[in-house]
């Protein structure tokens, strides 16, 4: 067994060691917050480089075939690492004192957990990774120890535990049916032993992942938690750990439970339609910007869930010539669209939450209203021009206006829905996108059209660097989407029979 054999997993290994190291160093050194921030950022950059060096690797199995490194896992690992890195960079302006070591260590552990999930092809490893990420984020959600934090973390924890219970029950049924924990084995077995128990297993699994993905009706923790947790943690939750739910669902549902294709096609058609509609409707009346972003996240999850419906409808369909890209399978295009939207949403949401973090910690000081209240955003363009401009672009991107990452993801995804005959769903999604402009434009109008409520404020370096990097990435993907579309197509191919 050579060391280099595990080269594709060095990224995870590095981050695990680093996380332990951060905890140890933190307890030994005083005032090490700044150092820990830089250390974590460096570690994440190194891990990103390691993952990027194997970007479109052929599927390779490790540890008794429980871990698979493939284009899909690498795609998600890049998403997770980028989100964590941006959050760490922004956090370096906020968490500098006591306890910073714990904060960064938890963040790194959560990242490792998400990376493990993205590579899992076995339900036990998947569950372990899932819980590692969940437990770390439960703690992070309460990190500032304010009353609101604690309430948010508590709700998140209770809801998460229930969801985990459902998921674990579903897994146990799958194991009972297949006699194996490998997804490939379950896939074979579910073709033979199809029965009511498998349907129950499927639905329980959907609940477990649906909680992370924040699909209606499993979403109810999300607005409260995103609003109550420290803003930068909300960024991690909305942009990072939410996507973990998607990769887990992709692997378990599309690969292991392909025999129940018609069932999950039905289920996700309902879930997607309800999720995007309710998410957008609920966002219209919120006055708390983080709550708006939370509901917008829910709506986006509804869009992304369209991929499941598309795969259900067009599974194994003949390639058609779409988007002038040559013959392409609609199901592959659907997953690719979802992946692009996941990537885009991860960036846009991280950026938007970092923006709220900056507003909450600087702009809203002395204001009597809630720090995230939309009234604090009045005249932000004058008070914090860089933040306001970045937020402006993120809002446009979230609404899906070109040329941004948000537009590309939606365009590919909705096209795939049309190509697989799901015109009604595409129309509903587009109507929803139009509806979403109501609350995005509302934030923009506060930032740019209202009179400033106070003097100009200092925009801290960490926040600004993270915001501008995110902005560049969002626009870059929107202007040069070709490479990203190809990458997403390759990652999507992992999930489908060739």
């Amino acid at each position, binding site marked *: 067994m050579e060391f280099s054999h595990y080269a594709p997993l060095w990224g995870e290994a590095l981050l695990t060691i680093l996380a332990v190291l951060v905890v140890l160093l933190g307890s030994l050194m005083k005032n090490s917050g700044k150092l820990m921030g830089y250390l974590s950022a460096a570690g994440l950059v190194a891990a990103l480089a390691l993952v990027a060096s194997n970007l479109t690797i052929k599927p390779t199995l490790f540890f008794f075939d429980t871990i698979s490194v493939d284009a899909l896992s690498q795609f998600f690992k890049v998403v997770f690492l980028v989100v964590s890195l941006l959050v760490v960079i922004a956090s370096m302006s906020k968490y500098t004192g006591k306890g910073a070591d714990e904060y960064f260590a938890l963040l790194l552990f959560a990242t490792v957990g998400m990376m493990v999930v993205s590579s899992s092809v076995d339900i036990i490893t998947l569950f372990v990774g899932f819980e590692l990420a969940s437990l770390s984020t439960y703690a992070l959600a309460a990190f500032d120890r304010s009353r609101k934090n604690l309430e948010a973390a*508590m*709700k998140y924890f*209770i*809801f998460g535990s*229930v*969801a985990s219970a*459902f998921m674990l029950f579903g897994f146990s049924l799958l194991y009972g049916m297949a006699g194996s924990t490998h997804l490939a084995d379950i896939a074979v077995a579910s073709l033979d032993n199809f029965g009511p128990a498998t*349907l*129950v297993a499927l*639905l*329980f699994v*959907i*609940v477990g992942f649906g*909680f992370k993905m924040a699909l*209606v*009706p*499993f979403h*109810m*923790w999300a*607005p*409260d938690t995103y609003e109550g947790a420290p803003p930068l943690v909300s960024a991690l939750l909305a942009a990072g750990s939410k996507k973990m739910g998607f990769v887990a669902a992709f692997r378990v549902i599309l690969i292991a439970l392909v025999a129940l294709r*018609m*069932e999950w*096609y*039905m*289920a996700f058609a*309902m*879930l997607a339609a309800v999720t995007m509609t*309710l998410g957008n*409707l*609920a966002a*219209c*009346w*919120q006055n708390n910007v983080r709550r708006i972003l939370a509901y917008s996240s829910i709506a986006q999850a509804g869009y992304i869930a369209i991929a499941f419906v598309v795969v259900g409808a067009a599974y194994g369909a003949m390639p058609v010539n779409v*988007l*002038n*890209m040559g013959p392409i399978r609609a199901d592959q295009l659907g997953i690719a669209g979802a992946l692009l939207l996941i990537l885009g949403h991860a960036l846009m949401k991280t950026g938007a939450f970092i923006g709220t973090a900056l507003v909450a910690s600087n702009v809203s000081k002395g204001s009597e209203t809630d720090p995230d209240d939309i009234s604090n955003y009045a005249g932000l363009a004058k008070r914090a021009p860089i933040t306001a401009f970045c937020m402006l672009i993120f809002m446009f991107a979230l609404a899906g206006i070109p040329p941004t990452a948000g537009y590309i993801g939606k365009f590919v995804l909705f096209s795939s829905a049309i190509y697989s005959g799901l015109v009604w769903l595409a129309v509903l999604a587009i109507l929803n996108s139009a*509806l979403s402009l109501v609350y995005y434009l509302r934030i923009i109008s506060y930032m740019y059209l209202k009179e400033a409520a106070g003097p100009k404020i200092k925009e801290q370096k960490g926040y600004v660097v993270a915001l501008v990097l995110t902005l560049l990435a969002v626009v870059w993907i929107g202007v*040069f*989407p*070709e490479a990203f*579309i190809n990458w997403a197509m390759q990652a999507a191919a992992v999930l489908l029979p060739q």
Partner: protein
Amino acid sequence: MYADYAYLIVALPVLAFLLCLFLGWHLPRGGGFITVLATFGALIVSLGIFSETYPSEIVHQSMPWFANFNVGILIDPLALVMLLMVSFVVTLIHIYGNGYMNGDPGAARYFAEAALFSAAMLGLVYADNLLQLFIFWELVGLCSYLLIGFWYRKPSAAAAAKKAFLTTRVGDVLFLAGIILLYNNLANLNLALKPGEYLLQFPVIYAHISQIAPDQLTLIALGLLGGAVGKSGQFPLHVWLPDAMEGPTTVSAMIHAATMVTAGVYLVARMFPLFYAAPHGLTAVAAVGAFTALFAATMGLTSFDIKRVLAFSTVSQLGFMMAGLGVGAAVGAVAVGVSMFHLIGHSFFKSLLFLCAGSVIHAVNTNDLREMGGVGKYMKWTMYTMLIGSLSLAGFPLFTGFFSKDEIIVIAYEYGTLINFLPYIFLVLAAVLTAIYTFRMWFSVFTGKERSNYAHHESPWVMLGPLVILAVFAFGFGWAAQDDFYSYLDSTFEDIDFVELSVIGGHAMLEGEHGAPAAEGEHGAVAAEGGHGAAAEGEAGGEEAHGEPWYIQILPIFVAIGGILLAGLFYWDKIKKFDPSQVTGEKDPIRKLLLKGYYQHEIMTGWFAETVVYGTALICNTIDIKLVDGWLNWLSALVLGFAQHVRKVQTGIVQNYVTALVLGVVVLVVVITLAKEVGLV
């Protein structure tokens, strides 16, 4: 070697734009020197590429953008002459601008916008595909809007900017429609494109014109022509151009005389094979061009605002260029060379004239010809450089405008013998009027008595320098370049089979270019010289046997000199014989018609806009508010009302949340099971 740096032609002005925008406030004169250096850099690179590629090489670079669009650079002779002209003229105008804008509090903004404009115009010229061209085209339009409204506190400037923006928008919509139509037609051909080829690239378009249905070609051509009409101020979308003179004079020179307005002509030249293949495509171009040439010239006769005279003259000369392209139906691709020659020459003498006008205005502080007079005593340099510009514009023998404009008239005659004489007649009349209004202006400004009190000083050298350089070109470019110019530009389209296209376009009487077999004996002489001959020799002196009778060839000389003399009789105090106000009384209907600009304002704004459009708008508005909005408001009230209820589901109590989760599972189980029972899935 220089070709590797072709991207700098756009990148440098963009950099200058950013520098001036963000740092200009801290720099002397608003950072104008940065803009000058940037466009000068673009000029150097263009010259380098010219020296490398002359006479017939083509630079083509491209990289994928997304789907089947690319970003690319195409520098062929047609693009290169434009690049050279634009970067050269713009550099001189920026130098001049350093003097002209000195002291203006918005100088930094001016130079930033001017740099962005330069970048956009240069990018437009060497785009290798229609989409990219359109993007720069819009950017150019935006810069034009910003610069016309540069003094945005002045209501008339703000209004003029809006007018320009909206009017050109009409054309741009047609242009976009043309692009979409072209794209659809090309996409439907299911072409097997080689790697690196993209649908909207010009070489790809050229190669597949013959496969598109003729009626589609005509529609596309009309769409593109719509864009060109808007941008190049052709009738009926010319109304914005005279008003655009509200901007600083440098802007008028740079954008509304020398460069941007030529974009429309350039577009038609660039897509010439398509226009040629489209039945009636070039007829429309010729009709629009010839009519505009005469129409605008008549209005130039009566205007008292020196800049407006020049603006009408620009519209008229652009009409000449358009007509020059349009009559290509008879002479083939050589028309592109003829028209482009006039375009380049015009940009020299028209920017010269504008800058001279700016110099005069700088001293006299008014635009009104009636308040000038005798300025020549104090501004010798301005007077003589403007004289050169005016002679060139009027088409006085041996000046640039003589060679270029009269070449258009000659090929219009050929068009006449083959197809229709109307364009020829219109152009000759316009040429007479050109000479008259040009010298009416020159005499009124520089000769005679002082008609108001103004400062007696010449402009600074930073302004006069560009005038002198431009004057050299306005004088010498014509005879220095004409022979090589035509043969050089001819190589742009040498790979295209115009005979095949002429069949589609229905040019039955065409002799084709490059000496294709003549259809009829009588026109054999014209035909034999086909491409190069007819154009190149038209004014070369006519030593050789030629298709046109001798009187056609020397007519332009008399036209120019006669026009100038006529203007002198009215406006030059030395030989003055008539008083203009007595020859045509105040009540003379023709004079009134011209002064009122054919009542365009009354018709277009007063009647068409305010009655027809506004009336229609009122009706639509009522329908919109009552029916569409009413319905939408009802819908949005419904949605938002529903949304309020949705919000209330979120109680904040975690027990309720878990209940919802469990309920969700139950609903899913029930629905899926029922659906299976019913057989839905």
